[in-house]
């Protein structure tokens, strides 16, 4: 049990996907202008990563490995995740229109995204079993949500600040992300 807890905490704060591994930056900088959107995006990413890592694990271990075609991993994962997200969007739209109103747009945005593809690839690379893959994916999603919500809070405060014109927008966002990454660096070494 403690092994899984450590894996989870590690994925959330120590190996935070955005701030130490630089995955999902496009969404991270694109969406974090707005607090509500960031929270919604964080939840959508967590759900999609967790479920798609299950599919990816099954596909890898029961299809790609037995057929000895692991060099196709990238293609298969991309198509698998993109079609899964599309399907999820349709299902959500049909059965829970309210949820769709909240999440629909984010689902389409993350259909092809580095963080959603990166987690399954890393799971496979680390040789995790199914349970560990799911825990790692869920932790990564929570870590992403944490980072983007923190970032959005900072950027909302920033609207009142007087930023030099050339740094306004993207430039200052990067510098803030750097400061956040610096504080997350404090967690490293917490778990061996």
């Amino acid at each position, binding site marked *: 049990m403690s092994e899984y807890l450590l894996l989870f905490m590690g994925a959330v704060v120590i190996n935070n996907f955005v701030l130490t591994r630089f995955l999902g930056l*496009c969404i991270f900088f694109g969406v974090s202008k707005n607090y509500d959107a960031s929270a919604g995006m964080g939840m959508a990413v967590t759900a999609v990563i967790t479920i798609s890592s299950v599919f990816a694990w099954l596909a890898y271990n029961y299809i790609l490995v037995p057929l000895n075609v692991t060099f196709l991993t990238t*293609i298969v994962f991309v*198509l698998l995740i993109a079609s899964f997200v599309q399907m999820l969007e349709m299902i959500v739209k049909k059965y829970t229109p309210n949820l769709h109103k909240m999440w629909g747009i984010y689902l389409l945005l993350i259909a092809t995204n580095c963080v959603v593809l990166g987690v399954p690839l890393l799971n496979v690379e680390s040789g995790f079993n199914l349970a560990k893959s799911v825990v790692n994916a869920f932790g990564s999603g929570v870590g992403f949500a944490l980072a983007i919500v923190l970032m959005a809070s900072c950027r909302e405060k920033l609207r009142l600040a007087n930023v030099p014109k050339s740094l306004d927008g993207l430039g200052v966002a990067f510098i803030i992300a750097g400061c956040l990454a610096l504080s997350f*660096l404090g967690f490293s070494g917490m778990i061996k």
Partner: protein
Amino acid sequence: MKRYWDIFSKGLVLENPIFVLALSLCPALAVTTSVVNALTMGLTVTFVISMNNLIVSIFRNWVNPKVRVPIYITSIATIVTVAELLLKAFAPLLYKELGIYLSLVVVFAIILARAEVFASKNRPVPSFIDGFGMGAGFTLAMLIVGVIRELFGNGTILGYTVLGSWYPPALIFIMAPGAFILIGYLVGAWNIWSARIEKAKGERGETI
């Protein structure tokens, strides 16, 4: 010829994929810890984006618009796999260092964006040049970041010691926060530079 140069050069500065469009940032930060890695990544992306633009442009009239995105993704994924296998065979060490970021080239927004915005509407040769220009702009940005990070973070360039033993390496440049902060300031510098170029063009009466 001038037209082709314009298509090529807009990717370098005014529409630089990293500093201006802010697309495909993940690798710009993740693999720029050394110049070699940055260069390899840049060349791989240039290869993928030009080949993909070429293929998308050749087949643009046969692709049903409704299913275009999955087709583009399949085409990109195939080319990336080819690049991956080539690197694995000829440069196994680099392949290991780039790790999953190489596979993640598939989901670079810039590649899909160029296919959608340019290659699906233009003839093969301009499309190829557009992809090549964007790739070159990407490589240029990667190199700038890579040189600064390796020089200040390690005191070397391409593995050769440049700053002698009197220079204590500033490790922060190699670590994650340094990458973010450095890119932040580079984006600022880029904004100033491209504003100057546009101003100069405006004074000469050219349309941008």
